């Protein structure tokens, strides 16, 4: 079985010229997607041997991204930019990571603790969600003594909102627990900030040299209509989606809790669909109402993922588009229905500014309302901590995560800006870098902002279609087990092989790490021999062999960032003007030919 090497010539080099495959440009943490795709494609048929390989690949990903197992269930942003999209379908990177996670999670509990020497300062991380955990992980690896202050009784933050049928509990719990175990991170549970207990000043006095605030946004937004809270909001039977999903994740809601009840979920985001599909699984006759329209391409298009909408539709959840809620009716103390005027516009140039046509209004019956129209931060607390600017927004440098008001405070995650799990993780990584620079007296901002360029799709004769992903049929999946079937080993290898490896070799090196090559040979063009015939530019699939005008003549050259050292141009050159410098193939050929018996002179 191969053994991957990560050091020396097999190490990924810093993105020189900032050129990367589009998936890695899109990924907020620039994960080594290409390298690990290639490694997966080189797994053996034998499952036992493959396991060794999977753990090696997992270990590699884990170094920078200890959340990768969770990504395999809930992320997939990279797929939106994959070059294969227009040619048959994006590479199913999320499922490839899930495939790795399936084996890796079992191994994770046995993984050896990191050998760290924590000789640097104490850092406080407020919030044990993905942002805080990532910051704590990277700071610990750099030698800082980190303490996480988590308000609840478990790590994971908003990830607990994600239903079990999308993210298994074991994956989330194991991921969070092992991060703190492996890095030796101290965690204080039920340590809420504010309420006279924990405060920034207290942390400073207790000797924490810097604080990373990643408390998230646990305050659900209230349901409003035309700027005011909706009438009837005090009836019983109205729940916030947030609260509801947290309760479910704690196991506090019994199955069939909603049997015989009409549940209406208000909201159009992924969380709304999580709530609706959860309610359906708990027996409710569920519908979803949102301001946005069905056309995802329009500016007012529904924000939820296409897969969620499709899944919900399959499960029998009605989605009612372009409707607001102007009134909540009650029967006695309980909700009995809602009044929904047509929403004609959600966003204008200034931003969120819904407009309604009240002459077109429908009524929906409902026994229960679940409100999922967004969440926000505890502004009052932030104001007290002097973290807001004069306009009431969080005063923070978006590149360094450093507070603009208090230089030893850093802010990230949903608290800073609402985003995906991986955005929060990125904030945590950046904050760790910023804190290190701040404490070591280095410039916090220098070289932090860089623009990345995406590599184009390589040419080939024909492209392959994406694999079909199987879902358990709706009638058999009204429970909280996973309904999406992941990849088997042959399927994962096949899909990983489909990856076109668009990105430059410098940011990959997978072949070197498993010993397929010692190092990457560079193509050299002998300008004296090159006649500018253009055969090389005709055959290069990566656009690396190009021609330019030199003193009125055509000459070829190689763009080394795009070159894959495949040697097609070397073989095709009719003048033998191209060479792969240091290519060991020729020596080997000479060796073999010398061995052959009865060599004939010439």
């Amino acid at each position, binding site marked *: 079985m191969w053994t991957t090497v990560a050091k020396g010539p097999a190490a990924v080099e810093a993105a020189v010229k900032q050129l990367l495959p589009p998936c890695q440009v899109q990924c907020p943490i620039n994960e080594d997607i290409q390298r690990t795709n290639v490694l997966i494609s080189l797994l053996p048929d034998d499952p036992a041997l493959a396991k060794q390989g999977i753990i090696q690949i997992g270990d590699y990903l884990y170094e920078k991204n200890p959340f990768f197992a969770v990504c395999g269930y809930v992320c997939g942003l990279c797929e939106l930019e994959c070059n294969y999209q227009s040619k048959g379908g994006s590479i199913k990177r999320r499922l490839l990571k899930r495939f790795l996670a399936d084996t890796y999670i079992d191994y994770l509990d046995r993984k050896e603790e990191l050998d760290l020497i924590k000789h640097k300062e104490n850092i406080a991380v407020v919030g044990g969600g993905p942002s805080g955990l990532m910051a704590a992980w990277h700071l610990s690896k750099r030698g800082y003594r980190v303490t996480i202050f988590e308000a609840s009784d478990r790590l994971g933050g908003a990830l607990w909102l994600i239903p079990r049928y999308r993210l298994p509990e074991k994956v989330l719990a194991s991921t969070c627990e092992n991060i703190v175990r492996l890095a030796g991170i101290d965690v204080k549970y039920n340590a809420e900030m504010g309420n006279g207990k924990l405060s920034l000043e207290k942390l400073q006095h207790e000797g924490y040299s810097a604080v990373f605030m990643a408390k998230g946004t646990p305050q659900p937004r209230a349901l409003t209509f035309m700027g005011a809270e909706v009438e009837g909001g005090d009836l019983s039977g109205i729940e916030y989606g947030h609260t509801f999903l947290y309760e479910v994740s704690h196991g506090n809601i019994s199955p069939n809790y909603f049997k015989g009840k009409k549940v209406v979920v208000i909201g159009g985001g992924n969380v709304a669909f999580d709530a609706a599909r959860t309610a359906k699984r708990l027996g409710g006759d569920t519908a979803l109402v949102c301001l946005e329209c069905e056309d995802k391409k329009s500016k007012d298009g529904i924000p939820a993922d296409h897969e969620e909408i499709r899944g919900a539709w399959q499960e029998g959840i009605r989605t009612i588009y372009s409707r607001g809620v102007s009134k909540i009716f009650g029967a006695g103390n309980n909700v009995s229905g809602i009044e929904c005027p047509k929403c004609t516009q959600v966003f204008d140039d200034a931003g969120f500014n819904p407009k309604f046509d009240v002459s077109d209004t429908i009524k929906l019956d409902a026994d229960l309302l679940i409100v999922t129209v967004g969440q926000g931060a505890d502004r009052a607390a932030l104001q007290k901590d002097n973290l807001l600017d004069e306009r009431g927004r969080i005063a923070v440098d978006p590149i360094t995560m450093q507070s603009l008001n208090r230089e030893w405070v850093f802010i990230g995650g949903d608290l800073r800006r609402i985003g995906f799990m991986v955005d929060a993780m990125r904030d945590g990584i950046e904050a760790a870098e910023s804190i290190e620079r701040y404490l070591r007296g280095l410039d916090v901002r220098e070289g932090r902002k860089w623009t990345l360029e995406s590599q184009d799709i390589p040419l080939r*004769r*024909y492209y392959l279609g994406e694999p079909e992903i199987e879902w358990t049929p709706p009638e058999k999946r009204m429970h909280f087990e996973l309904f999406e079937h992941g990849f088997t080993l042959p399927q994962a290898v096949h899909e990983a092989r489909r990856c076109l490896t668009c990105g430059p070799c410098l940011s990959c090196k997978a072949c070197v790490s498993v010993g397929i090559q010692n190092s990457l040979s560079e193509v050299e063009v*002998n300008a*004296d*021999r*090159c*006649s*500018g*015939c*253009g*055969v090389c*530019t*005709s*055959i290069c699939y990566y656009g690396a062999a190009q*021609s330019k005008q030199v003193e009125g*003549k*055509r000459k070829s050259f190689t763009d080394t960032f795009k070159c894959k050292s495949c040697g*097609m141009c070397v*073989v*095709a*050159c*009719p*003048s*033998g*003007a191209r060479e792969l410098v240091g290519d060991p193939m020729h020596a080997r050929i000479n060796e073999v030919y010398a061995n052959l018996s009865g060599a004939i*002179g*010439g």
Partner: protein
Amino acid sequence: MAEKPKVAICWLGACGGCDEAIVDLNEAILQVADQINIVLWPVALDFKYHHIEAMKDKEITLSIISGAVRNSEHEEVARLLREKSQIVLAFGACASLGGTSGLANFITKQEIFDWVYRDAPSVVNPNGTMPQTVTKMNGNTVTLPELFEHVHTLAQVIDVDYYLPGCPPPPDLIAAAINAVLTGALPPKGSTIGPRVALCDSCPRNQRKPARIEIKEIKRIHEVEANPDLCFLEQGIICMGSATRGGCGESCISVNIPCRGCGGPVPGVDDSGARFLSALASMLKAESNEDAKRVIDSIADPAGYFYRFSQPSSTLGKKPLEKATEGENV
């Protein structure tokens, strides 16, 4: 008065085109003739071999030898001139690369004799008479040179100092070669006189090539009316210019005929046929394997095309001269 350098010009297995090329220097030949002393030129002057045999070793400054080596007379003359000369120039494609007669290496000597003297439709040879190296008749003995089994380049028989390929070599390069000898400004031994890049470098059609050449069908030059402005390859016509040393002034291309490779390989390449084969295959654009095969099948005689002038110097075609024992029959 310093003696004028002696120059021998001789043809072996040749067509005479190379000698014609020297004559084609026109007025320039008179100036050249003025500065040298031609001691052998069978096509034009009346010197005999015994005149050469009588000379001292290295008395001839330059021997210009054209033609391939296929029989024992060629070998004898080549060795004689080598002995008596300071510099030997392999002149033309046949001497340098083997030439078109090199294509005979694809069949055996026996097959040649059977066809020419017995099986060809126009042959009337009821007694099956075949040429012999030694024939006794009427008390006399007459001899013929022995035909070798294989066509050889000059360098496979004697030590060659310089090469001037081309069928025939272009006049500029002929003049340059002779001048170099006369002035002593000689390149390193073993060099080929001429540019060091392929034809595309100076071909006027090169600048108009598309970024990617994609050949979907292959046509023979006589089957189509080729566009005189566009690269032949782009039009699906095989042109070996990209694998052939330049310096000929694109004389074929300029009359709308594709290059056939008489200039031989560029420096660093031994087998231009093989290199061109890879290049051509890579430019073929086909959707399926079947389609690619169909297009390749349409190439009539690929070996003949890629090795038209260079079979005896190609990887599989080159062979040192193996002498049969003395006095053997043909």
